[in-house]
């Protein structure tokens, strides 16, 4: 039901590049950090919600039956059975959401600069382009890449490995 109601909207939002939100965000929030937060949020949220919905769809029906025979009420069914069951899918959604939002942040920083917005890697990249300084551009690209790899290796990979190992879905 959740998928039917929100599925097409969420898929549509996922296809829409979050950079498309930059002009609207600038009009709403001006050249402030709120613009960046908004674009990041719009970039991440479809993937996170998609992960959540996919997780709910993949919960084996037997978990529901077991929950019922164990006497779980609706709240207990959600918190003790459904949420733990969908955790791997949810983390998968978070991981994808992080990738989208990181890309969005860089794009937003390139497009919208000035005002009270801080100086970020995207701004550095844009500055390198303006000065036609290839070394600055390549350094910025490498740092952006490095941050992505480090977050993947230090945050998402260990969480996913732990989740899958404890469930017997990955050799320890």
């Amino acid at each position, binding site marked *: 039901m959740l998928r039917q109601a929100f599925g097409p909207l969420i898929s549509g939002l996922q296809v829409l590049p979050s950079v498309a939100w930059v002009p609207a965000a600038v009009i709403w929030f001006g050249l402030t950090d709120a613009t960046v937060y908004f674009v990041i949020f719009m970039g991440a949220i479809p993937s996170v919600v998609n992960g959540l919905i996919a997780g709910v769809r993949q919960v084996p029906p*037997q*978990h529901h*039956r*077991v*929950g*019922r*025979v*164990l*006497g*779980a009420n609706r709240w*207990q069914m959600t918190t*003790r*059975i459904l949420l*733990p*069951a969908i*955790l791997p899918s949810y983390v998968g959604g978070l991981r994808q959401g992080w990738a989208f939002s990181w890309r969005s942040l860089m794009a937003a920083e390139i497009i919208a600069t000035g005002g009270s917005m801080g100086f970020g890697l995207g701004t550095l990249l844009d500055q390198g382009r303006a000065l036609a300084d290839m070394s600055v551009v390549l350094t910025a690209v490498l740092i952006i890449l490095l941050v992505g790899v480090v977050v993947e290796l230090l945050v998402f990979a260990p969480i996913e490995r732990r989740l899958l190992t*404890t*469930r*017997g879905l990955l050799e320890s």
Partner: protein
Amino acid sequence: MNEAVVFDTVDKSFAEGPEVLSEVSFDIAEGEFVCLLGASGCGKSTLLSMIAQLERPTGGAIEVTEGGAAFMFQDASLFPWLTAEQNIMLALRLAEGRCQIRQRKVRRQRAAELLDLVRLSEHAHRRPHELSGGMRQRVALARALAQERPVLLMDEPFGALDAITRSLLHEELLRIWRTTGRTIVFVTHSVDEAVHLGQRVLLLSSRPGRIIGEWEVAEEDREGARRAVLVDEITERLRNEVGRHGGDTH
């Protein structure tokens, strides 16, 4: 003796499908061990689901003693993210009412007792995928017992296990039944298993399911020639029933 489960001319059919159960009537006394025997697809599992209130009858009436029934499924159906101990502790937690929440320490102690009852104390902190099929079923049995319900429903719980493990678990189950005094309704398609475990065997026909045979199994019927005679008699009846419908027992 008080009745734990009463079926009074119960019918069951699913939307637009043929009738699964028709005019099924039987009584099960408190503390009795009853085996429900029948070919695959004859409605045995549906019948158990109705006792557990997972399904509603389309006709007739079902009475289950106060406290309801615990259910043990064919596969252990343990939650893979919890250890053996945590699976049992969750069942203990869900069995508690809002007004009588026990302390975590008390639940842990009770879980330890139950794991001891099924001889799995040493494996309390293992997750389901780290246990063998037989061990998983023993955890599932401990979890079912954790609910402290007077009736225990078992849906072919040992069907997927090898013969040696199954035989060991039969003895464990009989020991636990004698210790706890629960009413057990055990579904199987194995005549040997039914005669070995049950005090009474009920035979269910196929399409629609009806009770077409009932045998009392005395202690002396479980061994030697008397056992062979009883097993042959029930098998013959089951074979006739399967032949009539062209079904199978697997």
